């Protein structure tokens, strides 16, 4: 009998097309997702070298980072540089014959939401994209990670990636979550525990009862932020929840192919006694609704905590915390639930799916956002938007005073016109609270969709357990 393998080992082994003596491998890539910001130079490289795309049928492109999210975008993109990038993708998709969802297509949206939604992402696959949040697709038990533009070009030309294997790490969340606690709180709590470099060199497999109890949307939220913990990828073994989500999607296998796929997917789990190089266990009951207070995703605390003091930390973190508190305009000892908010952003590939909008709408039903609050919902895809309209969620947001936007990345990274002004403070459901991420000088607090909605109503960071 062969040695017990982790899920990561199994997917890796099934995709090695060539292995050199020093362990450098050519890993075969099943799905290559492409967006407008990190691909133009790669396509240009292909043209210069006279190369084509090896497997256009496995390559899917969608513009998301730059696109405006106001409804008037049908009239074109004002910003010239953004327009050029989107037009370059239009042209590259056409010239190289790859699957494409242009801005005008109702299926357009954030690449990591569109891939799963259309059934491109399947269990056991290797999935890459020139974007670090490719980790999202790991929720399906797919090995998925971000790559740079040179690697985008490499995958376009060869359908492989030069890789060395990472180490295995297990993150187990035991038991069940308490009321008000979500997938976002799990993933932020894990990063708070490991730090942003804690996963460097590893592929994380998330497991345990609390993970099994999550929907696919929740699992995508968890894996999405694996990269924020420094891991190459995050993985969750597929189960009935996964198969139910995948079945019937436009590009999911059908008929005999579906049966063959299901037989193959049945083997996608970590064998008993497989070796993990690092193990972290957190009790689901101990996870609280969480928020970030600083400028690194590891700067996370339960909402009922207070802003820490630089002297609570050690080494380089002392200066980093002092710097981030100055940037964030916060004082040690201040209660997190006293922090006043100017803006609320609900969206992104972390929390822009239908379940996220349902959670936020449930909080907002029959309520109004605080006077002077700027609040927007940016659905993760045109289809999420349409479904939310059908379910009456859009109306709840609009009645509460939210702007109801078109799909895209929007204020997650503020490459389009949706940006924070200096010192504007935002409660955001996205994944990065870096300095300047949402606009120069802007201050970001990361939290779950329900907590973001509650903050919009009260005007400050709010403990969802005490909100009614």
């Amino acid at each position, binding site marked *: 009998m062969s040695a017990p393998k982790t899920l990561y080992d199994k997917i890796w082994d099934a995709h090695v097309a060539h292995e050199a003596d020093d362990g450098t491998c050519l890993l075969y890539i099943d799905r290559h997702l492409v967006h407008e910001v990190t691909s133009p130079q790669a396509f240009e490289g292909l043209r210069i070298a006279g190369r084509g795309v090896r497997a256009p049928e496995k390559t899917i492109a969608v513009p998301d*980072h730059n696109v405006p999210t106001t409804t008037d975008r049908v009239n074109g993109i004002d910003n010239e540089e953004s327009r050029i990038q989107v037009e370059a993708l239009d042209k590259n998709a056409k010239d190289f014959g790859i699957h494409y969802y242009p801005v005008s297509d109702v299926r357009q949206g954030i690449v990591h939401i569109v891939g799963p939604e259309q059934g491109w992402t399947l269990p056991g696959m290797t999935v890459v994209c*020139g974007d670090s949040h490719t980790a999202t697709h790991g929720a399906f038990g797919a090995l998925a990670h971000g790559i740079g*533009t040179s*690697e985008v070009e*490499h995958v376009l030309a060869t359908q492989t990636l030069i890789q060395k294997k990472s180490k295995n790490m297990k993150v187990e969340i035991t038991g069940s979550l308490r009321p008000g606690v979500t997938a976002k709180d799990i993933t932020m709590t894990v990063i708070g525990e490991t730090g942003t470099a804690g996963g460097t060199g590893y592929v994380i497999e998330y497991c345990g009862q609390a993970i099994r109890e999550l929907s696919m949307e929740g699992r995508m939220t968890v894996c999405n932020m694996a990269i924020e913990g420094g891991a190459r990828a995050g993985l969750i073994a597929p189960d009935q929840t996964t198969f139910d989500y995948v079945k019937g999607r436009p590009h999911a296998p059908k008929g005999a192919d579906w049966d063959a796929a299901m037989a193959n997917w049945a083997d996608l789990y970590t064998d008993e006694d497989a070796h993990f190089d690092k193990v972290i266990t957190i009790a689901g009951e101990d996870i609280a609704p969480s928020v970030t207070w600083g400028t690194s995703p590891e700067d996370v605390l339960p909402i009922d905590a207070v802003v820490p003091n630089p002297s609570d930390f050690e080494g380089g973190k002392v200066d980093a915390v002092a710097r981030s508190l100055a940037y964030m305009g916060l004082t040690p000892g201040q209660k997190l639930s006293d922090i006043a908010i100017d803006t609320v952003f609900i969206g992104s590939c972390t929390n822009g799916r239908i379940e996220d909008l349902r959670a936020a709408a449930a909080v907002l039903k029959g309520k109004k956002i605080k006077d002077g609050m700027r609040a927007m919902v940016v659905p993760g895809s045109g289809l999420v938007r349409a479904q939310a309209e059908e379910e009456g969620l859009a109306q709840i947001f609009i009645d509460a005073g939210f702007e109801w936007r078109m799909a895209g990345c929007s204020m997650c990274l503020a490459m389009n016109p949706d940006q924070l002004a200096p010192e504007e403070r935002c409660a955001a459901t996205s994944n990065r609270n870096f300095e*300047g991420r949402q606009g*120069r000088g802007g201050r970001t607090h990361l939290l779950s969709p329900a907590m973001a909605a509650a903050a919009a109503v009260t005007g400050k960071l709010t403990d969802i357990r005490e909100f009614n």
Partner: protein
Amino acid sequence: MEKFENVSGVAAPMPLINIDTDMIIPKQFLKTIKRSGLGANLFDEMRFDDNGNEIEDFVLNKPAYRKAEIIVAGDNFGCGSSREHAPWALRDFGIKVIVSTSFADIFYNNSFKNGILPIVLPKEQVAVLMEDAERGENARISVDLENQTISATDGTEFKFEVDSFKKHCLLNGLDDIGLTMQKVQSIDSFEEKYKKSAPWV
């Protein structure tokens, strides 16, 4: 890609931990469809004020470091997004070597593809080099990739690890894609087998 030559000179100290790619090259500069010219906006929000004037006490604006080819950085350099614009900007500015206790995975890989050598050293050794770096023109750090050594000003030599394939590519200025194309038969035969075992892919 240019061949990597040995480097010797002043190093810019950036002791801040978790320097992320949004700091290295803010998103407003990602709208380009070119690889070149990004050095002008390297560390833009730390380097320039709202009016575009240089912020005097930012390290790369100080006379000693304006032409630095080496950065000695705090832990976890290059975390955040996958943007290769980060190494493009660093290389365009003239940076050839970055030393830290750790690098984010994607940034680390991207660096090699752009002629930048990221060097991982233990904390104590980074601290020695950081001290040197802080001495500006009074100190020099030398990097020898062939022998995998980096030397502090007083001559103390530290050995560093680097993947043999990555080293080979860097030293010879090799293009990955060309190398992989030589193995196209392996890819072809893998694909053929795979089509049979996983036809739904």
